[in-house]
């Protein structure tokens, strides 16, 4: 099957500021595709171009085979969008918003089911102004899905949600994908991208710096796993002789042992032999955080 989204050479400037430059990626049908990057990296400009809300200066965008600039309205019949910095009229009630938005689509889904799914039942009669941040967020996700879209764009979908609601949201997004909808997930949360996305593009300062599955991106980095534990001054030179260990370093009060192979077990037994038994001995797998750090030389912060 053809790609659902094809982007190549996308560029957008605001005055002298280059928001995105030479952005290219493709999204396959039925996957959760992540666009990961720090705030201000150009993520929102990118997805706004996908939805036909921005006119790029250069580049080609095709979503479901349509050009968002020329066929925006036809495209948005099949594309749901949850935007950052959006609002509804203050006195509009939750159910009214869903019913109204459903009427914009030729073949809408059942908005009453979305009310239940996104845990808005108690708030159906509440006005938009009275909703909490998390409730607004869930309403906007429901509105993005109300047209029963083939593709849905979710821009920072878990910002404003508490940890429990975040996890529940991730489950629901997986369910959306499993029902056949392709999901484009924009996020600055590393853990969200790593757990939820089948593939992703990392964007920084308007450019795509890497793309692929998070597993491949991490493996491609060639960073060794680490073992970490609290070591209060004990001499640890003996660990350098353990099979597979390449380096032993100290960070604050912690020892960090780099190496390959089953180093956690080997380090553990070596420590036991020397009668050192830290409570917090643990292995650290490299994560997207490391990928981002390696590619950009900086860390993503909230």
């Amino acid at each position, binding site marked *: 099957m053809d790609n659902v989204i094809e982007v190549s050479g996308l560029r957008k400037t605001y005055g002298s500021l280059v928001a995105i430059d030479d952005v290219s990626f493709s999204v396959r049908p039925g996957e959760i595709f992540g666009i990961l990057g720090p705030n201000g990296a150009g993520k929102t400009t990118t997805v706004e171009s996908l*939805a036909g809300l921005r006119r790029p200066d250069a580049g080609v965008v095709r979503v479901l085979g349509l050009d968002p600039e020329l066929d925006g309205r036809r495209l948005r019949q099949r594309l749901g969008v949850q*935007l950052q910095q959006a609002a509804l*009229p203050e*006195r509009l009630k939750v159910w009214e918003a869903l*019913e109204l938005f459903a009427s914009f689509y030729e073949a809408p889904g059942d908005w009453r089911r979305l009310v239940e799914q996104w845990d808005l039942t108690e708030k159906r009669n509440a006005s938009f102004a009275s909703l909490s941040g998390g409730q607004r967020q869930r309403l906007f996700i429901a509105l993005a899905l109300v047209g029963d879209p083939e593709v849905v764009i979710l821009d920072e979908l878990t910002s404003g949600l508490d940890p429990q609601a975040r996890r529940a949201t991730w489950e629901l997004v997986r369910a959306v994908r499993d029902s056949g909808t392709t999901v484009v997930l924009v996020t600055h949360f590393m853990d969200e991208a790593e757990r939820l996305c089948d593939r992703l593009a990392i964007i920084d300062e308007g450019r795509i710096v890497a793309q692929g599955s998070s597993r491949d991106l991490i493996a491609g980095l060639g960073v060794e796993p680490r073992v970490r534990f609290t070591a209060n001054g004990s001499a640890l030179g003996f660990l350098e002789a353990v099979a597979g260990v390449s380096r032993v370093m100290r960070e604050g009060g912690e020892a960090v042992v780099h190496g390959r192979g089953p180093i956690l077990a080997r380090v553990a037994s070596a420590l036991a032999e020397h009668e050192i038994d830290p409570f917090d001995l643990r292995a650290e797998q490299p994560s997207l955080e490391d990928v981002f750090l390696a590619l950009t030389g900086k860390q993503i912060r909230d």
Partner: protein
Amino acid sequence: MTEAWNMTKTELKLFLRDPMAVFFTLLFPLMMLFLFGSIFGNEPDPDLGGRGSVDVSVPGYIAIIIGTNAIMGLPINLATYRAGGVLRRFRATPLRPSVVLGAQVAVGLVFAAVSSALLVVAGRIFFGLRLPEDPAVVLGAILLSAASIFAFGFILASVLPNARTAQSVAMVVFFPMMFLSGAALPRPLLSETIQDVARALPLTHVVTLVDDAWSGAGLNLAAMLVLVGVLAAGVAISTRLFRWE
């Protein structure tokens, strides 16, 4: 068409939930009618060309109704929608942009019509308001006025960035216009100089057009030309300046 109707229906509901809008649009003109009607009555007055005080006031009050909807309501609503991201949210749907804006104008027109009708019925029942000989001419005058002043309001709606600015600017534009145009006070009470200055205000020509049509003096061509010009300028400027975000 369904979505246009749903959008308008929703905006009508929202309007009725807004106490400020209901007060200024529906109650304020009636308040003026009863206040000044009870003070001056509606006896035929030779100074007013044989018309009563209520007779000469009602066309002006209709101008006020059009003005509150077009110069206050429309820009404040649209600026609030723009600043909050409501327009942005609607743009991300398959909805035609004209439906979003059209619904606003439709709601303004519907409530202007309801409010004018209430005013005329109350004036007739309580003060024996003299009705125009040719209602069709009056209706035509009101429709042209509404179109023109809404187009003027759209210029404000296009350039005012947020609700707070829109509120202040709309008031600064509207309230002086309401008094200087002869809409709230009979024009003969205003000095010649003020009347000359007031000719620069679009609402002045609404009062002239509607009042002449009502009193049987016919359609005032000069006022019509000015209002058509305002309409054309309003459409041209706001289509150029309107911003969704």
